[in-house]
């Protein structure tokens, strides 16, 4: 974070703020908005860039294939996953506010992986519509942007 990037707004103390504090103490309200720069890391960058080529990669490490990749400091190799997958759980669309892209959050185990992946299920489904273990298929966006939103899973044979 750089100092000049931060926007700091300071308001003068008000009778309302003092009353809200429940004490006679003087108060100030500040609103700080600061940008943060995150790094995907060495492995995460490979994983995300592979999405541009419509490839979902897992990391084979210690006898397991994990996705997304985690830096465990051991010898590892990349393996391609999918396109099939198994549904583990999902956030039913009728329980939450509707998403604009007709999808819902899901946890799936992609074929070839030993760990489950948080992803999107499309179309959004309501509670009871799909059972754990349902088969899914991987789909990619027409113009991938190296993001987790580049791909989603669809039910097979529904």
């Amino acid at each position: 974070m750089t100092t000049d990037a931060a926007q700091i707004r300071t308001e003068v103390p008000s009778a309302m703020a003092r009353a809200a504090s429940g004490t006679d103490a003087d108060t100030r309200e500040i609103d700080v908005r600061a940008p943060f720069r995150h790094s995907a890391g060495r492995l995460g960058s490979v994983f995300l860039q592979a999405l541009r080529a419509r490839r979902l990669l897992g990391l084979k490490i210690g006898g397991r294939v994990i996705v997304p990749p985690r830096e465990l400091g051991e010898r590892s190799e990349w393996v391609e996953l999918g396109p099939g997958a198994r549904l583990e759980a999902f956030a039913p669309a009728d329980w939450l506010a509707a998403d604009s892209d007709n999808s819902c959050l899901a946890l799936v185990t992609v074929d070839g992986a030993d760990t489950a992946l948080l992803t999107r299920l499309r179309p959004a489904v309501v509670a009871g519509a799909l059972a754990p273990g349902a088969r899914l298929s991987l789909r990619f966006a027409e113009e991938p942007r190296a993001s987790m939103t580049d791909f989603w899973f669809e039910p097979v044979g529904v």
Partner: protein
Amino acid sequence: MATPVVIAGSAEHVGRNVAIDAAVTQCVRSALSAAGLSLGEIDAVVTTGSDILDGGMVGTRSGIAGVYGRELIAVPSSGGHACAAAVSLIKSGQARNVLVAGWGEGTKFSAIDGRSVQADPFYARPIGADAVAMTALQAQRLLAHGAVTRETLDGYGATMRRRAGRASDESDGMRQWLRPLWADGACAIVLRASERGVRVADIGMSFRGYCPEPGDLDPAAWVSAAMANLKHPAHDRLSVIEACGPAAVTEFAALREILTCSRWRSDDDRVNASGGGAAAFFGPATGLRHIARAAQALSGGRNTALAIDLAGPIGQATSVIVLEGTN
């Protein structure tokens, strides 16, 4: 023999739109008064507040809690972990009297898009994996596997709201157990090296990352892992159980690990007499309130209590704390 640590005093101040600075002050004064101590007799302070929304206020509020001139440990993860740090200070001989103060402005969580506070910008945030969506994912799996029934969850949620005095809030059945009932609040506990009082007998903890594997979605597994770290199993001798999680479904699913022999009943006031997280969930510090409540219940003549702290929507920081009355 290890130094016995007791909860010598506690206080809480919770509600909606509470002025946190004033609440911290009030709680610290009241807890010290209950313990019969002055601030000058406190050797160290442990504070706990959400590192996401309250992080920028840790310095200020730790000052309000009385940290100046004393050792400070700031624990963002949970009230249970803060309590464990305080107990360690006493057992190691580094302090005799420790003040633990926690706070949180949970109403801020409900006022903003949860995704805007996700620290993970690559894997969780872009796909909308906020706290409520993760809880829904967890609940769907529990229901689909028959681990809990919708009727039981409806009953548990309604009971907790009634005990918390919030029965009129959002009467829709599912919302009673799926969504957090955010509140603002503060709590303070004074721990002492002493033979007399409610003793912190044992603490077990478990941790996990935000990206879950399927089995990790069951809170009973989090509690099981934490219970396995207790030195002395406590299942069979509990007279008080206080559990708090961000949503009632999380709490109830966790309680299944403890109540396998006796199913939960709505008239069982041994479990969450205070209403659990429905009473006031103000973020990771909330567990402190339930440790205090469990200790107060033991002061009423019961023998052994378990406080279960389920901080984080998928059990990132789970603590089980066994308290024993010595009277």
